[in-house]
């Protein structure tokens, strides 16, 4: 047995921040050596000033709000439809034969390739962005819900049969919890896609939001705002990661408590 020195948990959490902090420090040091005329990469100070400027005139907060709202609205629809269809197709073989093949065919079309079509149909309004995000987030949740239900441990289903667990109890206490780990993986993948589609959609077809803010800044060569936009995406992405990890620990408590012991 290899003897390892156990570090406390907080040190692991700290380790995750070492590289980002070093990058910021290097960036700050690099900034002090630059003359103000550099226009390709802004200094950390310039980005900070840009941040305060947009914070003061209220546009920053407004754009964050709009982007986040859009993202989750799309995720809500994509997730709800994906989950429902995943459950139905997972449970019913008959409906599965009817629906699964067409869904798989659509899945093979890259979701961003549908953008021109949806732009022509729905213009550049809110509906377009919601639909684009909904399409992108639908598949991971659908596929993982479907396979989570389909590939549930058959021994447990057999046990339920012998012990008379059926109908509501079977779905609530056996099938759904059994599929949940897989569903959570789907949700995580969907969240990643959600931000990607949002950025693209907002840069192509929007009059507000972080993506629009960045595209607009490019027109005027406002490098500080472009970099600020990227940082905002990173922060929003990380925040949604934190939320799902929290959800996972809450919902899949049995897994974590088992791992800890073994």
């Amino acid at each position, binding site marked *: 047995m290899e003897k390892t020195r156990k570090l406390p948990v907080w040190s692991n959490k700290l380790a995750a921040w070492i590289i980002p902090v070093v990058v910021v420090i290097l960036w700050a040091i690099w900034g002090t050596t630059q003359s103000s005329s550099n226009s390709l990469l802004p200094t950390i100070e310039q980005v900070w000033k840009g941040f305060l400027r947009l914070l003061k005139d209220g546009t920053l907060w407004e754009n964050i709000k709009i982007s986040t709202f859009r993202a989750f609205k799309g995720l809500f629809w994509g997730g709800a439809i994906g989950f429902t269809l995943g459950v139905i197709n997972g449970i019913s073989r008959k409906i599965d034969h009817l629906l699964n093949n067409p869904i798989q065919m659509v899945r093979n079309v890259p979701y961003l390739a549908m953008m021109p079509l949806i732009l022509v149909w729905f213009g550049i309004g809110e509906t377009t962005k919601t639909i684009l995000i909904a399409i992108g987030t639908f598949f991971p949740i659908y596929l993982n819900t479907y396979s989570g239900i389909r590939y549930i441990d058959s*021994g*447990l289903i*057999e*046990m339920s*049969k*012998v*012990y*008379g*667990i059926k109908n509501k*109890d079977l779905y609530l*206490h*056996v099938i759904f*919890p*059994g599929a*949940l780990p897989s569903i959570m993986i789907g949700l995580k993948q969907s969240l990643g896609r959600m931000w990607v589609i949002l950025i693209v959609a907002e840069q192509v077809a929007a009059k507000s939001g972080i993506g629009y803010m960045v595209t607009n800044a490019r027109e005027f060569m406002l490098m500080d705002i472009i970099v600020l936009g990227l940082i905002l995406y990173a922060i929003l992405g990380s925040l949604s990661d934190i939320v799902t990890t929290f959800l996972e620990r809450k919902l*899949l*408590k*049995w*897994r974590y*408590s*088992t791992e800890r*012991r*073994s």
Partner: protein
Amino acid sequence: MSQGYAISVKNVEKSFGTTKVLKDINIEIKEGEFVAIVGKSGCGKSTLLRLICGLDTVTGGAIDIIDEQNPAEQAGVKFLFQEARLLPWQRVWKNIALVSEKKSKEVAIEALKSVKLEDKADEWPGTLSGGQKQRVSLARALSSDPKVLLLDEPLGALDALTRIEMQVLIENLWKEKRFTAILVTHDVSEAIYLADRVILIENGEITMDERIALARPRKRDSSFAYFENKILSRLLEQNESLEGADSFNI
């Protein structure tokens, strides 16, 4: 006090595709009797158990589970699998409560007491050892006072000491509750320790039906060894004749 049901297996046959797994099986099991079915893997013993339980359907013949009061009733049959098959996302007590009629924690704790695991009621199944899991599974089977308990090599995956503990536990619970028990195992000594009758199945046929006339609790003494030897030599004899046939063919 629950009294087990009698079980009547008449001319039962079972085929999977063209393979005949069971051929003309006839067994009469009295209420409250403890029967062990032994045989090598693939002989069809587990299939027979699954047929009695209704997990598979017979190809021919009939299986009747007879209750004096209520001839059509089959609900009192419970099955103990080789693996514990607990729901890992439910607490130990909930695993039992889910299958009991009242679904209450009190009933679950009572059942856990009978296998001496009441202090694990609030744990996740994943934190238990293999033997503890199988004990919870036994508590789950017994929580609804079954009339028939079918055991499909439930101790096969346990270590030798835990096995002996479990055998004693199963015997005591059987004596207390008087359900009819059918144990499928490939461990001849386990079969003799627990059963009133040991049935040997070879290639889908019953080749031996031996009554174990020993007082309980059984000690592994010379008369125990007599039965063990008798059944084992029957098993090995068949093995040799098969090998002989093989070499003859070559």
